[in-house]
């Protein structure tokens, strides 16, 4: 990771941390902000990937996965934006679902990383904690306020992990 990528990751981590704290302190009032930011982030990623595919990766071996990822991110982004008008209970279910999805991705990535002798322990830990957060959210789904608090703790955890990752030393394979 270059110094600029570290700064980028740190900035995202700090914004997530602040949002997590705001969600914990102000509960429901923070919903629209989170939904809008989440939707924007997903849409921007989608547009960026699609732009990259059509301008650069169209002829690349394996480039089609970038197209699919771009379409998926854009789709999720638009869907998330549409949740502004639905009852908060459903928003919570949706956010819990995305957290579960993220946990599964982390665990699968950790499994893949272990197979190729790359760093996997931190990713496994991250996936396991996210999964635990999802389970607790599901158990207390009837208590909306409690779920918001649990979710905000999970959000803060994700932010901290991002900051830790940005500060970790990474190694590259040198070529000569």
């Amino acid at each position, binding site marked *: *990771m*270059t*110094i*600029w*990528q570290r700064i980028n990751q740190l900035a995202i981590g700090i914004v997530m941390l602040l949002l997590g704290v705001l969600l914990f302190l102000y509960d429901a009032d923070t919903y629209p902000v989170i939904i809008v930011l989440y939707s924007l982030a997903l849409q921007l990623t989608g547009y960026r990937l699609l732009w*990259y595919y059509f*301008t*650069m*990766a*169209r*002829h*690349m*071996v*394996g*480039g089609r996965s*970038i197209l699919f990822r771009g379409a998926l991110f854009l789709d999720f982004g638009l869907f998330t934006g549409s949740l502004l008008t639905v009852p908060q209970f459903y928003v919570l279910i949706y956010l819990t679902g995305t957290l579960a999805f993220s946990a599964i991705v982390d665990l699968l990535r950790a499994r893949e*990383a272990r197979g*190729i*002798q*790359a760093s996997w322990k931190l990713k496994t830990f991250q996936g396991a904690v996210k999964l635990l957060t999802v389970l607790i959210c599901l158990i207390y789904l009837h208590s909306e306020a409690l779920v918001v608090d649990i979710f905000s703790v999970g959000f803060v955890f994700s932010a901290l992990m991002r900051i830790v990752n940005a500060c970790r030393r*990474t*190694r*590259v*394979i*040198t*070529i*000569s």
Partner: protein
Amino acid sequence: MQEDFHYYATYCAAILAGYDHAESLLICHAAQLVDHCSRTWLKTVGGPSDAATTQLQLELMEARTDRPGLIDITRIWSSFHFLPRDLYAEIARGTRNYKDRYRLICGPNGKLLADTVNLARDRSPVAAGIAMHVLADTWAHTYFAGTPSLVINNTNSHFYELFPTEDGGFERKHISFSHNPTAADDPEKRLYVGSVYQSSEYSIMNLGHGRAGHLPDYSYIRYVYLPAWGGYREIVKDNPSDYLHAFSQMVYALRFLRGEEAEFSTDTYATATIAPHRETIREIIAKRRVDASADWKAFGERLSGETIPAFDREKDCEEYRHADPGSKKDTFLGQFFDAALRQKSMVTTRILESGNRLGGLPPRKRRMSS
């Protein structure tokens, strides 16, 4: 390529081309120094930072990948390790950004190779050494570009080593990659270390042959894979053949630099000169191990009857540090820095002239912005 080829094999090539032991040592020392002359090292020596011919792992990790940073990386790696084969390569597909990257793909026998060898003509053996590093790498690093680019340098898991069979064909065996930088390559298990997939176009992990690990650096291996730019067509990389060509072309180029050939033509080799040693060279190249230094060293010592000292990066530093400002240019390192700057300037100019923006701003725009 590694020390075995850039240092010991280059020494052998210089001896076969007619250089004496001392000159051959200068040539191979300069050729190997190209892999060590980073900005960090230049600071300790007191050399010009622009003369950097490589970037250390730490430097790469901290390197900026904005436009000026990418230009700096491209100038270093394209000039010394991934000399572009054809800066005007015709390609019907892709945007201008894509074509800029595609045209930096390294390969042997390009026009830039002739320019590189001609640039070293009538100069010191040190300049010849740098040219030999660049020449040898055009064979090893074929199909990769000296700029961070996912769409050019990425590879997938489709890697198969080719083993000759009795019926004249080849048997395929899958090659696996580990992404643990502390692990060692294991040729017996066909397990090699490569960089992790990074989806960012400009990630340092996508520079050169990082994704294919050190496979291009090993002379014994033949393999097929799918380069990102290849339109799903398998590419066969026959390192034993390529390394033999590289060695033979080095001998020919060094003969030209000594004045024994009237001109340097691409795709020409010193086949007759190496003929008596062809089997020995083939054996060294084909032997299955990650470092062939010992065999090349023994071969070189048989050729010259002299002992080849181990490469020592610090050997000439004191001489450069203590030289008067006016006589620094006459020291080994002074000559090395001068030749490196000339090479980098020549390649950068050619890239700029071709209209490729990865080498920097075109001269007209530079004047306007200054």
